[in-house]
């Protein structure tokens, strides 16, 4: 009895640092942000900050861009990560090396990733120099300007896909490795083609991993910030960069908080809908 109690105590003790961290650096600031978003400068409740936010010239674009980027980035990442995970999971020659190479961007901060791609896409950047040296273009193309918003979006999407696909891949790979070989062997006996195996066996069994990868990536895609700031400035406003702008440049912590709160509500909604839409039945877990 005493031993069991000890065990329980120990588990709480082990949890305590994380819990303390979350309370101090997540829950307390969260409550403060909610308070700030509804508090007038002089004190007291107000909705004025929200009114100002919704009528700001950057707000409709910020919302639209945030959703658009998530919509473009996440499916691309999912497909690329799944393919990479399939290849690496084959354990063929060089698959470990491939895994390491693929995972390199994981170690790079989003701001640094933005800077790397800025040096590629800027007017006198690597891309233009290459194209010019090969004789494809006569004069540099301007990718990052207000006159070509489609290029701005493309640059951010490419940067984000390059930077964060490995994260999805690692989650999917661990999911793939959990799938018992027996299912695949059974499918083979029944004469399934490679595509049928992927569609009928692997994908359904991978659903829990896909779900967690989706939740994580969508939340992170909503928060995309570094590459935006570096590549597009305020030409491509998103909710996260607007929150930063209102706080750091305009020094208006109230509207910055409102943006942050909006971002959180959006993330919660999406997470919740993933949990509902991609609900996994117990027998689909695939662990034997």
């Amino acid at each position, binding site marked *: 009895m005493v031993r069991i109690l000890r065990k329980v105590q120990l588990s709480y003790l082990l949890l305590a640092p994380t819990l303390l961290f979350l309370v101090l650096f997540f829950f307390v600031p969260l409550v403060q942000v909610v308070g700030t978003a509804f508090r007038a*400068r002089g004190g007291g409740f107000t909705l004025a900050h929200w009114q100002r936010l919704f009528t700001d010239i*950057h707000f409709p674009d910020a919302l639209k861009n945030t959703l658009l980027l998530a919509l473009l980035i996440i499916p691309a990442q999912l497909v690329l990560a799944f393919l990479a995970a399939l290849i690496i999971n084959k354990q063929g020659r060089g698959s470990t090396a491939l895994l390491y190479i693929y995972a390199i961007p994981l170690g790079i901060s989003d701001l640094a990733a933005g800077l790397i791609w800025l040096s590629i896409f800027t007017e006198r950047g690597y891309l233009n120099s290459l194209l010019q040296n090969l004789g494809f273009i006569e004069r540099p193309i301007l990718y990052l300007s207000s006159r070509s918003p489609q290029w701005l979006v493309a640059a951010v999407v490419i940067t984000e896909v390059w930077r964060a696909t490995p994260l999805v891949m690692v989650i999917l790979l661990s999911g793939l490795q959990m799938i018992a070989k027996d299912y695949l062997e059974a499918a083979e006996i029944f004469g399934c083609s490679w595509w049928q195996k992927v569609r009928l066996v692997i994908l359904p069994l991978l659903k829990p991993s896909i779900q967690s990868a989706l939740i994580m990536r969508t939340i992170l895609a909503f928060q995309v910030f570094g590459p935006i700031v570096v590549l597009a400035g305020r030409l491509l406003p998103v909710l996260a960069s607007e929150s930063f702008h209102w706080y750091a*440049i*305009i*020094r208006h912590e109230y509207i910055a908080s409102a943006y942050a709160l909006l971002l959180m509500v959006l993330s919660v909604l999406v997470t919740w809908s993933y949990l509902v839409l991609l609900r996994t039945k117990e027998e689909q877990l695939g662990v034997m």
Partner: protein
Amino acid sequence: MKLSRSFSVLLLLSALVFLAGASAAQTLNFASTQFRPIEEQQFFREQVLAPFVAETGIQVNMIAEEYAPFFSRLQAEARTGRFETDVFGTLHGDFPALLAEGIPMELPDPQSLPGRTFIEELVKLGQVDGQQIYVPWTQATYLMAANKKALDYLPEGADVGALTYAELLEWAKNLYEATGSAKLGLPAGPQGLFGRMLHGYLYPAFTGHQVQKFDSPDAVSMWSYLKELWDYVHPSSAIYENMADPLLLEEVWVAWDHTARLGPAIREFPDNFVLFPSPAGPYGRAFITVINGLGIPKGVQDFDLAWRLIDHLTHPETQVIVLEGTGFFPTTVEAASYVPQGANKLLADAVAAQASAPDALVSLLPVGLGARDGEYVPTFKDAFEAIVLRGQDIETVLARQGARLRELFEDTGADYPQP
């Protein structure tokens, strides 16, 4: 039992850490909103602060940060009643805002510092109700710079030293037609200072005022001008943060920016560039004079130690080092009489030419907006984005932004900035 032992180890460790911190008491925390770009920070640490550390043995911890975290830090420290920031340096207009936020400042007469005479006008600007709240630290302004190649395309009869905005447009147009790409660049990126050009240069030059004529017919013609000019402005301008890099890369040939943000290009190739005053409009050649000050929060742990750092930072010798390295100009008579060489001479000459132009019109940054100081420039910049980048109707945008601007001054009770 085991737990309490590890707990006591933890206690001991934290006590040791605390003691180590306490024994290094000769440390000053110096927060600055200036010298923030990474090259300037490095220069400041190595060339400006290092000699002080070597001479006095006092460690200086320089914290270069954006305005918002800078304000948040001082506000938080004021609330705890214990200032960890010993010395801070920021814009002239921030000091009254800091006072309003409950950060008290009381300094002795700067002229009591040995070996220097501060420019009297600047000392007076650092006083509120007769109380000195900052020591004048550096001065700066915004200028135009051009690659010498661009001079061939100046419109006929135009003098680069006395340019008008109409001539600038024609010049930019000539360059565009001759080279096939826009060669005029402006720092309109998120951290760029183009907002200053709108409120302190274009508005006063075209309307005579920064605020009063925000939505007047003169303002409408200014915005039409800017829209027309923008066709010949390099499209990457909307992400430029400083103009030194695009000038060096020759992405642009003509640019406008802060002296410190043009400096790196000029210092690299002083023979390739010319520097000259900003253009003039119908109401004159408007320009901003930026003044930075150094302050000490009242109630800091060791005032004398903090004052020694200010003594060092405003010493004429230090001010000359800062001018040579960054393009920020001195505030003491002794350092101001120093004649710089090379690139800095170009900068200094252009600053003097701008200040002494017969049609000079000095713009000051607004004072008294307090905590809402940060909303001033974005009002202009939002109008710019709506009108120029998105092509919205000028009158509609000016009516909306003008109402916001007037509300800002009414709510805070601040006076309109000069002119």
